[in-house]
Structure formats: C-alpha cells, structure tokens
C-alpha cells in the first residue's frame, strides 16, 4: 500500500534522532550551572553574595533547569500515555462497585491521558456506560490533581519524599471525595439528559493503530502546546523566586506563614481556588516559595487547589451537573486539600 511507504521512515534514523536529542538534553542540563557561574560572576563581575548577582544567577539557572525538566518530562509522559486510553479506562471501571471502584478510578485518573476540556464528554461517556457517579468523580478529581508532569517536576526539584507524599495525598483525596459524593447520592444532582444520552456508532480507541512515529510526533507537539500555554507562569514564578532569593530575608515568610500559623493552609487554599493553571505552570512558584521558607504542606495544598478546582472546568461541568453537586464537589475536595495541608505540616515539622 502506498500509505505504508509514505509513512515509513528508516527505523535507525528515528532512534538516532531521539538519542541525539537525549544527549543534547543531558549536555545542556550539565553545563547549566557552570554557564551561569561564568556569565554572572565572571563576565558581569557580580559577587555571588550580592543581592543582584545571586538573584540573576537564580533566575537564569532555574529558568533553564525547569525549562529542560518540562521538555523532557512532557515528552516522555506523552509518549508513555499514548499507550493508555480513556476508552480502556472506562472498560476497566465498567463493572466496578463503589469503594474498590473509587480507588481504581483514582489510580487510572493518574495514568489516563485526559484534558479538562474533555471533562464533559468523559463524564457522559462514563455514566452512560454504567460507571457509578462517585467512581466517575474519583476519576475526574484525580486526573488533574495527581499529574505525571507534576510528579516528574517534584522529583527533579524536591526529591522522592515530597513526591510520594503528594501522590499518596492526591489519590486519597480523589478516592475519599468520590466515595463521599457517591454516598450523598449525587446522581440526583446530575442533569437528566445525561442518563438519556444514547451512544451511537462504534467506540474508537484513541490509542489504537499508532506507530512509534505517531507517538513521537504527539510528544513533540504536546511539549510545544504546554510550553506555549504556561511560559508566562514560568517567568512570573521564577521571577518571584529570584526577587525573594536576592532581597527578601529568609525569616520573612517563616514569621508570617510558618507551619504553626493555624490559618496558613486555609489562606493558601482560599487563594488557590480562583487561580487556575496546570501543575507545570504553578510548580516554579511553589519552588520559589519553598526556598523562602514556606512549609511544604501549605505549598502542596496551594498547588492542589490551583490545579484541582478551577472556574473554567466548573463552568464546563455545569452543563451536566446541577449547582448543588458543583458546590458539594468544591466543598468536599477543598476540605480534603486543607486536611492534607495540615497533616503534612504536622508530619514534616
């Protein structure tokens, strides 16, 4: 067939290209610190002890480091995720009961490729296939909350401990919140047309028939799409970090937002709910604030509220969910995030 001939690139050139990209990535990652040392302290002649010097160094070094981490992580995650599909997830959740079903839905929410702009079709598709509302909600909560890109960034910036805490906390929130909504009989707050939706035609598995070249192209395009969307957040987050690094005394935040401050977590979650970004966009800010002495529990709570609860997604979900369910959803998830924030601050203190 001519189509086969057209799309077949020699295998070696594909893998050689990937290997070259990986080597270039490693090389850039390695020369990052020496380069900024040389430029800021050498060429500009600024002292590492001066506010301006350390600030500029922090900005340049972190911008390149986080940029490289993002490019690598988004690419690898997208290629891996192209082996999983939401159709397969739904089939796995089909006959599941509440309880075990919630746990499974939360886990699948992490690895299934999904974007919040598809929340409504996914919701209808799950419910129409007989997946219980509570189980469906566990999936929809876990999907943005525990994000592989966030996992990769946390690993690269904070190490394994905070990363495991984040994953465990996110899965727990998604499982418990979904189960709670199921217990509250949330189906009475779903717009009736959802239950009447009849699916026509055949189900297309979006991961079927992809070649390695397709998957690599998807990875490359996803890197460009996400970076184009989040670069302002990246600049602001790292900029804030640079200013804090140079000019704000380290005990400033410790005085006003320490783990002992009983309102700290609630204020952080209250600020995070109206803000909306994905995990990749908010992480540089989290790192900056952590460097300034804010406790990890408060910061994870802030990040989770930014990514899990967002106005645009609520407006989309309003098409299928009545206001009572949206309000309950926000209340249950926010309570979970606040609880996680306080327990981490206690645990890590």
């Amino acid at each position, binding site marked *: 067939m001519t*189509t086969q001939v057209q799309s077949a690139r020699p295998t070696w050139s594909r893998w050689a290209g990937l290997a070259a990209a990986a080597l270039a990535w490693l090389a850039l990652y390695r020369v990052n610190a020496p380069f900024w040392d040389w430029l800021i302290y050498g060429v500009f002649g600024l002292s590492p002890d001066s506010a301006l010097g350390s600030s500029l160094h922090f900005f340049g070094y972190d911008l390149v480091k986080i940029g490289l981490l993002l490019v690598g992580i988004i690419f690898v995650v997208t290629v891996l995720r192209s082996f999983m599909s939401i*159709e397969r997830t739904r089939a796995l959740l089909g006959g599941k009961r509440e309880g075990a079903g919630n746990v499974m839905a939360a886990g699948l929410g992490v690895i299934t490729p999904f974007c919040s702009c*598809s929340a*409504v*079709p996914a919701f209808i*598709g799950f419910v129409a296939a007989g997946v219980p509302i509570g189980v469906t909600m566990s999936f929809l909560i876990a999907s943005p909350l525990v994000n592989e890109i966030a996992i990769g960034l946390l690993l690269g910036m904070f190490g394994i401990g905070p990363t495991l805490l984040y994953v465990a906390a996110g899965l727990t929130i998604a499982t418990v919140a979904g189960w709670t909504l199921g217990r509250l009989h949330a189906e009475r707050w779903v717009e009736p047309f959802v239950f009447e939706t009849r699916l026509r035609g055949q189900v297309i598995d979006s991961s079927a028939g992809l070649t390695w070249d397709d998957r690599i192209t998807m990875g490359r395009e996803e890197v460009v799409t996400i970076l184009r969307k989040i670069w302002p957040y990246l600049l602001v987050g790292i900029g804030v970090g640079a200013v804090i690094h140079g000019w704000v005394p380290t005990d400033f935040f410790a005085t006003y937002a320490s783990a002992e401050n009983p309102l700290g977590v609630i204020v952080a979650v209250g600020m995070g709910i109206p803000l909306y970004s994905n995990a990749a966009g908010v992480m540089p800010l989290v790192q900056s604030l952590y460097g300034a002495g804010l406790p990890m529990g408060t910061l994870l709570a802030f990040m989770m509220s930014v990514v899990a609860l967002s106005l645009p997604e609520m407006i989309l979900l309003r098409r299928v969910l009545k206001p009572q369910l949206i309000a309950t959803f926000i209340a249950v998830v926010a309570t979970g995030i606040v609880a996680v924030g306080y327990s981490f601050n206690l645990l890590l203190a």
Partner: protein
Amino acid sequence: MEIKILGPGCANCHRLEERTQEAVAALGLDVTVEKVTDVAEIASYGIMRTPGLVIDEHVVVAGRVPTTDEIGRLLSEQ
C-alpha cells in the same frame, strides 16, 4: 461528503480544524467542514476525549490531532 469537527473549543480542536481545512484544500474536495461545539452532541458520538473527526457520521479519529497527511488519507479512503 460531510465532515464534522467535534470539540468545545480547546487548542487541539482548533488545530484539528486547521489541518482538516488544509487536507481538504490539498485534495481539492468540495465539502463543508462543520464544527460541533455542543458537549451533549459531542458525547452522543461516543467519544470521550476531544477533538474528534467525523466523516459522513463515522468517527474516524478521537482524542488526538492527526497530521495533515493522515487526515488526507482518511478523507480519500472514504
């Protein structure tokens, strides 16, 4: 031939629409490309991940943005 783009208006949906227009132009087809943005109607096609490409009421791609070449192949297969 009738082509529909299923998508509530996300970045990927716009990209799929652009590429479909390109593929249609390259093949010199005389068809209309219709956008379906209503979520209930999108869901009724059985797709759970946008965007979706529908040719003559058959969903041919869902959940990803194919290349212009691939869209061209799909169009000429129908």
